[in-house]
């Protein structure tokens, strides 16, 4: 393989293409469904307001879901990119490392146990808080275990084991939980961007947006970090602060999405690679917007497939993302000579 570099012009075109893909995916997700909404109807609902049944579907079901998928995908992709740079390992992502399952476990505790007694129903914000705690808890354990481990494959296995452990505890909680709560939890755990209220969306949009902007300001140290901690240190990076910030942001992004949509597999792992390979660079200043746009477009399309492939039955979104994500992991493992 002899790679040639891309000119800034080529990259600009790529970004335009990514952006167009996001817009196209959003449009498709808006108009396609069990109740099709034509483009002209879409314009009239958005433009002039309408109180038709379709307007209700659009405002209460379609649009929140479209926005959630785009936002969730972007956040997962950037979270995965951060983790890959942090561990300098191409086969990690929030799902593979067990961060998503850690978030799931804590959400299970809230949804299934009596912890939620005293609340009317399950507060979405409590879910969010639980997911964040679960994500940070798992990440902390992984960091403690891997403090002296350099091998990428070992890290991968430790992440898988963390996933199993979290899953095991979650299943015990499920076994002891009340039927009605289990049903609710299982639906959530399937993973779906549906059912979010506008209020939840605004929280996701606000926090997620801030975090994504924050990540971009870390571009410079992220690039230095590619050479390893010692080189980064020797170039003037404040390593302790920087490590803390990456972990903080990566787990927050993954935790927020998990709280909102349940665990979504492989987006965080596969998308950064697709961005890197298409832009042909690891420069964070290009990779962050690239991963963000690609994550949004791909997650959005996966959500469309999940909704439509066995319509009217909806399959979990992870079923779709895993189908293209898992082969990418295998492929990377097979030809990892240059990266690990």
């Amino acid at each position, binding site marked *: *393989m*002899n*790679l*040639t*570099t891309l000119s800034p012009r080529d990259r600009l075109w790529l970004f335009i293409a990514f952006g167009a893909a996001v817009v196209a995916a959003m449009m498709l997700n808006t108009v396609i469904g069990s109740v099709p909404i034509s483009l002209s109807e879409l314009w009239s609902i958005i433009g002039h307001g309408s109180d038709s049944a379709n307007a209700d579907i659009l405002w209460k079901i379609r649009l929140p879901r479209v926005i959630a998928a785009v936002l969730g995908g972007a956040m997962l992709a950037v979270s995965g990119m951060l983790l*890959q*740079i942090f561990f*300098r*390992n*191409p086969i990690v992502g929030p799902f593979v490392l067990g961060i998503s399952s850690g978030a799931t476990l804590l959400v299970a505790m809230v949804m299934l146990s009596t912890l939620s007694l005293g609340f009317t129903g399950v507060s979405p914000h409590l879910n969010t808080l639980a997911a964040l705690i679960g994500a940070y808890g798992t990440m902390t354990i992984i960091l403690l275990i891997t403090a002296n481990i350099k091998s990428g494959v070992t890290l991968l296995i430790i992440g898988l084991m963390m996933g199993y452990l979290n899953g095991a505890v979650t299943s015990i909680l499920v076994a002891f939980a009340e039927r009605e709560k289990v049903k609710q939890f299982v639906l959530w755990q399937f993973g779906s961007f549906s059912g979010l209220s506008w209020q939840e969306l605004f929280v996701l949009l606000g926090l997620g947006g801030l975090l994504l902007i924050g990540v971009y*300001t870390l*571009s*410079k140290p992220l*690039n*230095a970090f*590619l*050479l*390893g901690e*010692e*080189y980064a*240190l*020797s*170039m*003037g*990076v*404040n390593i302790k602060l920087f490590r803390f910030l990456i972990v903080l942001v990566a787990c927050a992004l993954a935790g927020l999405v998990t709280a909102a949509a349940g665990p979504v597999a492989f987006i965080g792992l596969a998308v950064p690679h697709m961005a*890197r*390979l298409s832009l*042909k*660079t*690891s*420069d964070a*200043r290009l990779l962050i917007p690239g991963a963000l746009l690609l994550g949004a477009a791909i997650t959005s399309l996966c959500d469309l497939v999940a909704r439509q492939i066995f319509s009217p039955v909806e399959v979990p979104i992870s079923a779709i993302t895993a189908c293209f994500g898992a082969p990418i992991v295998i492929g990377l493992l097979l030809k990892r000579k*240059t*990266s*690990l």
Partner: protein
Amino acid sequence: MRTAVLMKMQDLGVGYDHQAVVRHISQEIRQGQFVSLLGPNGAGKTTILRTLARLLAPQQGTIFLDGKNLQDYRQADLARTLAVVLTERNFFGMFTGFDFVALGRYPHTGFLGRLQPKDILKTQKALHLVNAADLAERYFNELSDGERQKLLLARALAQEPKIIILDEPTIHLDLKHRLEVMTILRRFCRDQGISVIASLHDVDIASKVSDIVALVRDGRIIGWGPPEDLLNEATVTHLYELNAAAYNRWLGAIEMKGDGTAGKVFVVAGGGTGTTMYRLLAKQGFAVTTGVIHENDIDCYVAKALGATLIMEKPLEFISEESMGRAQGHLNGNTLVIDTGFPVTGINQSNLELLKLCLAEGKRIFTLREKAAARKLLGADYQKLVFCQDEIGILRALTSHH
């Protein structure tokens, strides 16, 4: 010309977890000096370098860089003064040679690391200085170890430091790149005025490029000074605990001793005709005795370094009766004799007599001389010689004779 002191170590002790590996280092490194750390594996060379680069905290003592305590530097200020080249050459990610070298501009660029025209210029200059302009557009992970190492040097240079610290910069490199890297580092010192401190494994290369060599052994710096003063057979043998090889300061190289189990041979040589023969014989395990050799003859240096038994004569003097006597003493029994075809001049005339004596005693002599020349020198007896094409030919004849 003595330049200003750039780095000063004061009773420095380096190590891990309150355990000093090397202690009591009190030395100075001057601007533009090339300092090589030599010593066996595990002696603590890397630990010293990591401490000087502030990747490790000193266990005792102080390091001053440009007059200021190293520990008091802000990370960004240190990055503008000191750059490192570590042994790792595999990096995660996709970047071109240019991108990689441009990372060296890190301490000089703004918040998002955007390259200004002067940064681009300096990156290109660094690429040129390490002969790597052609690697600018190639992807780092597709390059060979040697090419990557050049980019690592350029990256360090792009940082515009006053000192570059390198851990085994030539490890895993082929000969061409090993020499190229050393040439580039010399250039950094001489043309850019940058001080270079590196751990090296090749004593011979280190002796030829360094201004100062530091010998690290047994938790101490056992020597610090110009290689011309410091490196000789005794110090190098002690430093590495050599027993099957020896360093020769005149050759500036290491010679491998034979184990002497393949049999005894006596080589009559001189004027440099014996060097190839000695090395070949030592390699094949022959115990070599050679004589009579003049002291300033290259044959003398090589034979000595190889651990051969030497019968020496003072430089530029006629071979004495006494030396002849010692040579004959070694020619007892059925010793095999090799004649390297040495030029016969006035002062080594006796070596010819030695050959004649051997022939008279019926000893087998393997020679590299032409038949006509041999007849002229040895008379009718010349036919008893075993004529060989070259050193390999002699070796074949020797082994078949056995």
